[in-house]
């Protein structure tokens, strides 16, 4: 009796295993982690994935998105828990940390050759470590420029954006309006307190336009604590003092509502501005070069980028690189890549690959993105270094301290410089251990 039952059970189990194993043996499942999470962005990414799966029926791709603020945490905790994604799209500042920890797989030779042939050297450097190793396919290039509300400037009596810091202070103060109760109903220059990139990138753009540096060329020491850096932070203090800016007003949230005159921002904001109800994108949004500081000679800016890379623990590395390549490659001459289309048309960002820049030139020719395209030629790439995120956050906090009158520019930069150099030295020692 029992042997019969046992045999029946085993036979059933064998059948189940046989039938379930057939599709498993043929199918590779890739997980892609990105931070593009709005409804439109999700739909656009899913369309790319569906097209890839239609061409590659043996590969399934699952899309996971998290908010940018949680992306690094998601990558770290996923790795620790052993459930990491196969494909990451991440901010290049984190690259040295991830490489040092062995998170990333080296790209295939074909991938490296394709990147070399189709991407400008400056952008390749932005997704490479100091030893020259490139770690993934660069995607968006984001320089910062002064985005302004033409209507508010005109109402304040100005028909052109500020070209230097004195004009910036003057125009910002002229735009600001305060009602009888003390409420700020209109602000000259919006800052983005509470967001590290929203604070440090505009600061860096102004610093570079004032002839200063963020780190030394060899990235061994911080150089923002310089006369140029102090002048840059003094600009913030002056703007607060003359009412030109106020950290309690969010430039990111209130510029689209038409109550902020100017903000220093990146091109990917176009989709938001186009959909904004408080400002008319075509007639009211203007883009200008970063105003030049007293110690600067010409407008400059900072540009950051992102990249697609593969997790070193992925069991499907060849398939993952194939998928990334498929998304970034041009399959038909002049048509551009799937990701290029997404970056330009869904985000308003500037793609890294030359074929995308050519294919979507028309889409990037509007008054908004074209200015950023021009700036990408001279914007300095954000200097990436192990511990860079921590340094950036420390700087953000001190800039906010100046904005809220808690410290002076001199003390703020001296404090961050000391801590930043300690971090850089520690990272060097770690690398040598």
């Amino acid at each position, binding site marked *: 009796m029992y042997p019969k039952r046992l045999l029946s059970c085993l036979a059933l189990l064998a059948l189940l295993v046989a039938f379930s194993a057939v599709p498993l043996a043929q199918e590779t499942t890739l997980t892609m982690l990105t931070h593009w999470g709005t409804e439109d962005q999700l739909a656009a990414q899913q369309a790319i994935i569906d097209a890839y799966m239609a061409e590659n029926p043996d590969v399934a791709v699952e899309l996971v998105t998290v908010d940018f603020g949680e992306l690094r945490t998601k990558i*770290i905790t996923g*790795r*620790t828990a052993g459930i990491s994604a196969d494909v990451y799209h991440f901010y290049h500042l984190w690259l040295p940390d991830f490489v040092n920890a062995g998170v990333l797989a080296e790209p295939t030779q074909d991938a490296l050759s394709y990147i070399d042939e189709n991407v400008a050297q400056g952008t390749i450097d932005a997704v490479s470590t100091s030893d020259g190793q490139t770690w993934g396919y660069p995607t968006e290039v984001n320089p910062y420029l002064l985005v302004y509300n033409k209507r508010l400037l005109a109402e304040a009596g100005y028909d052109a954006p500020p070209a230097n810091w004195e004009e910036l202070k003057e125009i910002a103060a002229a735009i600001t309006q305060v009602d009888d109760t003390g409420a700020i109903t209109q602000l000259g220059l919006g800052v983005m*307190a509470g967001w590290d990139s929203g604070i440090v990138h505009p600061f860096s753009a102004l610093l570079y336009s004032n002839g200063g540096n963020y780190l030394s060329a060899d990235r061994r020491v911080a150089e923002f604590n310089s006369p140029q850096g102090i002048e840059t932070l003094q600009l913030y203090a002056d703007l607060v003092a003359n009412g030109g800016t106020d950290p*309690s007003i969010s430039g990111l949230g209130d510029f689209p509502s038409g109550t902020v005159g100017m903000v220093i921002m990146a091109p990917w904001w176009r989709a938001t501005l186009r959909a904004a109800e408080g400002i008319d994108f075509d007639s009211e949004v203007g883009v200008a070069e970063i105003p030049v500081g007293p110690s600067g000679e010409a407008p400059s800016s900072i540009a950051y980028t992102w990249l697609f890379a593969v997790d070193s623990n992925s069991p499907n590395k060849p398939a993952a690189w194939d998928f990334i390549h498929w998304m970034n490659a041009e399959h038909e001459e002049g048509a551009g890549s799937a990701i290029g289309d997404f970056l330009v048309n869904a985000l308003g960002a500037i793609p890294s690959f030359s074929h995308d820049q050519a294919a979507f030139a028309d889409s990037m020719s509007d008054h908004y993105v074209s200015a950023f395209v021009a700036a990408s030629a001279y914007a300095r790439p954000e200097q990436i270094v192990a511990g860079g995120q921590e340094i950036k*956050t420390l700087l953000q906090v001190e800039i906010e301290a100046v904005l809220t009158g808690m410290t002076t520019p001199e003390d703020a930069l001296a404090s961050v410089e000391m801590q930043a150099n300690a971090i850089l030295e520690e990272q060097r020692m770690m690398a040598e251990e």
Partner: protein
Amino acid sequence: MKTQYGVIDAPAAKAASLLPDMPKSALMRRRMLWAYVFVSAPIIALLVFLLGPILFSGWVSLHRWDMLSPVDEMPWRGLSNYVFLLTKDRVFLKSLGNTFLFAIGGVGANTALGLGFALLLNSRIRGRTLWRVLYFMPVITAPLALAVMFSFIFDRNFGIVNNVITAFGLPRQPFLSGPSQALMTLVFIAVYQFVGYYIVIFLAGLQGIPQDYYDAAQVDGAGKFQEFRFITLPLLRPVMLFVVVTNTIGALQVFDLVFATTGGAPANSSMTVVLHMYNTAFKFSRMGRASAMAFILFAIIMLITLIQVRLLQDRTYQE
């Protein structure tokens, strides 16, 4: 069998007398085995999910670990994480001070207001049940929802609080964006959120005090204040101990409210220890230093709790 009060517990005594004579049959052994199985389940869960991570965290606090490198490759750092935190990490020291202020303000206000409202609700006022529900509603509201709501309420430009105070001719205040006000505004929100819970606890304590004591005091000519001072307060001391200890522990571990409202801004003026711990671990990939913070916080909580228990418990039993 005698209980601690000297009363003989007959069923227990009978069971105890039977136990030595019970035959250890296979059935009994099987029952005992199952008893061990059931007892071992929560013990294993405690070891795996509580004690294990605590020990691991202690081990990590002696290393430099970015959570990405293999655990067996963590570089040994000894006590340097602790030394750094206590001597060089200005954000940690600042957040420690902020957390103490938050705890002192929160515990003080919650205790005073909790007791005050409980006394009111314990009296014969109309709509007592309605008031209790109203006070308790914030306790069951999601903390993040409260945080978002208060971000609007306290907005410098459009918040209703500023609109009210400017109507009285007072200047607008940067409640959540001003370095000198953000922390105290967070204390206010935390008190709003939790005072209902402590009202319920105090109310239960008040209702446990026999009416006879008040009747006797009234016969002796005691006034309302004397009743409160010499009857209510001493008999509420065990409840007070519970409220103060649990509130202090919760306040020292505050995270979600700060994370969702100010994020520690502006310029770390509202940064708390657990939020700094989170940033250090997940934003800067310094799990060793974050673990050391957890142990320092644990030691502080333990010390404060022991002091509170000592101060309040001794007097409870003496009186």
